[in-house]
């Protein structure tokens, strides 16, 4: 696992969802250091949480804005490792189109498509071609565990260079 925070982009037209991602990846606040010290002294062990993957989040409310943001980050040498993309984002293009563009412009990025209903089928997945190894699906409503788990899988696959036809 890299020591730097993994950069994750959330593209969703619903800002409440932005908040959800923020809460999930921020996790519960760890115990303050003095509290941990005191607990160590008093009870012989500290109640600190196991280390979590450091995630730095960015948000976009429309597909086009998100794709532009990712392009700029890629050009700036700090590409997003993973994007969560909502399926329905009127009035702009939908999540599938945003996903195609993200995959096209960055051969390393991983994308998780979030959808609230069964509007995507296996044919949509197949249509992503050899890029589909870099795409995951997350049904809304999701919970914290699902999001953390799929993020971990996707970020690991990127670090290992598997699942796509990226540069390696």
């Amino acid at each position: 696992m890299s020591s730097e925070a993994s950069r994750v982009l959330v593209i969703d037209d619903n800002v409440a969802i932005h908040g959800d991602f923020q809460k999930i990846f921020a996790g519960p606040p760890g115990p303050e250091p003095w509290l941990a010290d005191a607990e160590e002294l008093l009870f012989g062990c500290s109640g600190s949480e196991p280390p979590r993957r450091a995630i730095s989040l960015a948000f976009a409310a429309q597909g086009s804005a998100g794709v532009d943001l990712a392009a700029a980050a890629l050009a700036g040498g700090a590409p997003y490792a993973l994007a969560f993309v909502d399926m329905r984002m009127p009035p702009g293009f939908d999540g599938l189109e945003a996903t195609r563009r993200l995959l096209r412009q960055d051969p390393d990025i991983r994308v998780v498509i979030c959808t609230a209903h069964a509007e995507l089928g296996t044919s949509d997945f197949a249509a992503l071609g050899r890029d589909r190894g870099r795409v995951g699906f997350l049904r809304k409503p999701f919970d914290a565990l699902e999001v953390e788990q799929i993020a971990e899988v996707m970020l690991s696959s990127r670090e290992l260079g598997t699942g796509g036809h990226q540069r390696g």
Partner: protein
Amino acid sequence: MKLNRRLLLYVWVPLAVALVVLAALTRAVLLHSAAVGTRFWLTGAAERVLPRLNALESSGFPAELASVEATVAGPTWGAERSWPDGPREAVWGVRGADGSLVAGWDCVPSGKLLAGEAGYADCGGRAALVSERSVDGATLTVGRWIDQGYVDAVADVVQAEAMVLDGERVILSSMEDADGSPYLPDLAAGAEMPFRPEGGPAFGKFVASGAAYRGYYNGEEAGNRALACYGLSLPLGPDSWMLIAVPESILQLGAIYSTRAVTAAMGVTLAGVALSAWFFARRVSGPLGRLADQARKVGGGDLNARIEAAGDAELSELARAFNAMVDALKQGRSDLAEASRMAGRAEVATGVLHNVGNVLNSVNVAADMVRTAITAMGTDRLVQAANLLAEHVDDLPRFVAEDPRGRAIPTYLVQASMRLATDRDRVLGEVAVLKLGVERIKAIVATQQSQARRLAHREAADLSRLVDEALRTVAAERVDAGVAIRAEHAAGPAITVDASLVADIVLNLVRNAYDAVADQPAGTREIWVRTFEDAEGSKIEVVDSGVGIASEKMSRMFQFGHTTKADGHGFGLHMSALAAQGMGGALACHSDGAGKGARFTLQLPASPPTNPLPRGEP
């Protein structure tokens, strides 16, 4: 009479007769041109052979053209030959120091008895005659110079011909080989013949097995150089072919004959066919024309167009079929309208699912947060701290004053309780989110339920209530849209309508209005909804300050599949307009142009039905 029988009588039969006549005429013309002495050659063109001669490869020669090609390049001369289904072969030789041709040899023993063949070589105005003869399976090849000209011949074993065109003269050299005499006579002793000899060379001997051939001749007008002529071979019988050429110069005459006669024949036969077709048209096209008129009316949307069955049985049958089709179309259109309405509902359901999904998402995450926060609250730590104190209850003052752990406890308790307080605040915050989410879902579901009263098609509906409900639904869907909504209600008492249909339409209009203002700067996104009554009856008006509609797009606003939205499907407004029409009302649209907002007016049926159904259960 059956139509297809008529077609046979008036069109196909004349056409077939015309074709037979045309073929016969063509054949006669061609035979005539043959009789006047047009000669054709089977030899391939020199320009095709020359580039390949140095290599003299035996492959690559078109097998479908049985021919001989020969030329001289430098000291070498060569000839190639091929025949259908047989090997391709080359013969070549070397020119002697005195310019004479040394006999060449066959590169490939043929192994079968072949027609004797002759080739030519064009070398600076001179020609070499190359001939060969098959004797007992072995091939003899002889090369010889002749004077200026061109040589070509195809001959069988006992007869060979060579023709040399020398200006206007034709030198015909017989290569007859009746009884072992030298196969190739001296060309200088060949008989001179006029160009059009009586009973010239038999036509059938010049047989090419492909459809196309090329030949050429030498002539003064061409500077004694080869001119190409092109042609087609036409089959005349099982083993007989005719070559028709469009050559230059000496071959022109025959071609002109052919052209004129064939043109005349074609003219006559085409006139016959046209006349016949005209008769056919007169008999049949009248009723068909009326059918076409009615069909056009149907195409234009008039589903009351019908045809009177009259005339021929077959045309009557056609008329009946047409009328049945229009009936089916009429039924189909109303089915389609219903299907379209259902599709609109499916869209509503999908939208609801999406909205509920989004809200549930926040609810889920908030619940997760509450769970984690409570887990991390460390209440068990407080129990542990209490236990620690309990263990030392007998010497508590000393424990708290002197033991390092005991000394830490008071501070720890203070800090831990402060931490608990912040944790509690976080949990309460998440609980508020949960509550809000649940309320939103309730609102969405309630709206759905009110729309789900589908069975009671007509009910007394309070328009203002109906509109407010729609506004609430859309507002719950688009919480972050930043749109200012104003509703004015001046409609009279409840009217009897299909309330769920009206709600569908209003929902659609309000959603469209939200979309229309979505790209406007914040603070200028405004939507006005009005219910009122005028001379025409009750109306609901949805006005927005959004993108507006360009005048050229206005006419297509209600068209099926028309959409201005990137993710639109184009049946929302279409379905709404159909529904308005179906209930006896109307949906109209007005805009001052692109960027100037839009106004959609739903006019409800002027007079309520006389026998309204009882209102459904809410």
